């Protein structure tokens, strides 16, 4: 009797598992195609490009956050501040480059050059801020999530106040290099040039992170550190230094995401990072903490859902992503690609 009951329970749990997998699969695919029921194909394509673009921009921020969560078990609520700092650093550099004729009056080469310079500088600014924050503050809070939340929230407030002191509290218009302004009209589908750049940059960053994590010894060490910090240390690796490096890389990616987002929106304001952090957190939770691929998939999911719903029922745009997050957490608490 007991054995029969056990088998029946096993069959039930297996069918429940199949159902969960099916629902997850349907959700992942449905996000792409269900909107076609209500949206005409031309608008659908325009919104899809916008959604993928937003996804790529979110991925830049979320990838750093997920690595910091996954490897260091640090809840870093200052991540949004790195995002804002990246945007403001890029803003200043673009203004400086514009004075040299490299932005608004630039040709294609100069536009590409100025964007490359801006991305490079924001990566450095983000990494430096990350090292400073990790060394001075984060290091003292390892293993204590409550302290991490409180102290990184505090750090975020301080960093945003410094932005207000240095650049002022008001919204500013950020310059867009000339070659990336305007749009292409491809058979009535409007393709904003900068969106293509954002998709390219996001894809390149995803590929670079994947190659680094999968193929290099440093990447293997980081993945190993995510799984078992103690073992990595007894194999002779200084996990603290790896922590600092990962935190700096995460902060650099957030800063890069910030300037890309700012150019995409053509606007900056001190609180922009905090707003974006909500999306990044949703992406990380959907994708699974510590999984870069999960963040990539989650970011595209969030970007698409936001754009389709913003077109159909604007007031539900943020809500639908929280709903997706709740459904995924119910079906798969560790996220799409998270580890146990």
């Amino acid at each position, binding site marked *: 009797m007991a054995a029969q009951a056990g088998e029946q329970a096993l069959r039930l749990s297996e069918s429940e598992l199949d159902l969960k997998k099916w629902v997850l699969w349907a959700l992942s695919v449905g996000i792409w195609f269900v909107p076609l029921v209500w949206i005409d194909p031309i608008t659908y394509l325009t919104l899809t490009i916008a959604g993928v673009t937003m996804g790529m921009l979110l991925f830049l921020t979320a990838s750093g956050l997920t690595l910091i969560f996954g490897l260091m078990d640090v809840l870093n609520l200052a991540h949004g501040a790195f995002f804002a700092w990246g945007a403001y650093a890029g803003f200043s550099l673009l203004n400086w480059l514009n004075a040299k004729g490299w932005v608004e009056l630039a040709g294609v080469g100069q536009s590409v050059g100025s964007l490359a310079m801006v991305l490079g500088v924001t990566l450095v600014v983000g990494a430096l801020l990350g090292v400073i924050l990790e060394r001075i503050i984060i290091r003292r809070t390892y293993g204590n999530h409550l302290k991490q939340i409180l102290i990184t929230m505090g750090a975020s407030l301080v960093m945003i106040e410094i932005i207000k002191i240095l650049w002022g509290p008001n919204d500013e218009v950020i310059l867009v290099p000339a070659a990336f302004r305007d749009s292409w009209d491809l058979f009535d589908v409007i393709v904003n040039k900068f969106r293509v750049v954002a998709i390219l940059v996001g894809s390149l960053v995803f590929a670079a992170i994947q190659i680094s994590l999968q193929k290099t010894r440093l990447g293997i060490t980081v*993945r190993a550190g995510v799984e078992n910090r103690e073992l990595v240390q*007894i*194999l002779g690796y200084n996990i603290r230094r790896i922590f600092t490096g990962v935190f700096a890389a995460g902060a650099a990616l957030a800063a890069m995401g910030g300037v890309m987002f700012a150019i995409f929106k053509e606007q900056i304001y001190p609180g922009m990072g905090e707003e974006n952090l909500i999306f990044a957190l949703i992406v990380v939770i959907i994708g699974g903490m510590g999984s870069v691929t999960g963040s990539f998939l989650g970011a595209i999911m969030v970007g698409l859902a936001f754009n389709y719903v913003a077109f159909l029922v604007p007031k539900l745009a943020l809500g639908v992503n929280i709903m997706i997050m709740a459904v995924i957490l119910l079906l798969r608490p560790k996220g799409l690609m998270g580890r146990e």
Partner: protein
Amino acid sequence: MSDPILSLNDVHAHIERHHILQGVTLSVMPGRATVLVGRNGAGKSTTLRAVMGLTPATSGSIELEGQAITSMKPYEIARLGIGMAPEDRAVLYTLTVAENFRLAMSDEDGQGDRRLAQVLDLFPDLRKFMSSKAGILSGGQKQMLAIALVLVRKNRIALIDEPSKGLAPVVVDHLADSLNRIKETTTVVLVEQNFYLASRVGQDYFILDDGRVVHQGRMEDLAEDHELKQKYLGIA
């Protein structure tokens, strides 16, 4: 008689508020296999963790060939040539077997590839799983990989914690053969509950009880001392 390669002198260690090691003093001679035995909770694993810096000693001293390592970080101790295979088959499950080796290998002496080849001769089962995730290996294979990760580094001492835990007797036999080959080239410190394996591999022993060394000597003497085994190990 040569000097000890590793010595612990009145080492105390705490885990949270619990005083686990209460003055461990022992010496490990180079080129020999030393076994730490004792009941559960006697402090055997904590002793290895204290040597490795994972559970730092709160007082006392630990020396590697006369050099104090008591307050060093685990990675610094590892770089001095102490390797550890922690209990519960600690390998990196999400990495492939080849990636586990790539991470663990040290090649500062240009002998990394030679050591890897030797390790794969010792544990030939691992060869066919090089591109598989370590998580799919059987318990015995995981244990072999855990020990292999110590051996591919240029280590002077291998600390091996409860390698037989949860393994079938036939696997334990194979493990004993492998450990006997390892001790020919590396000083081994083995923590082991399985007296069969301990007596097959060990040359010197230390019995720990309540965080202290209560007995020490040659393994062959312990194997004959039924009273001592009954008192501290619960076996006749």
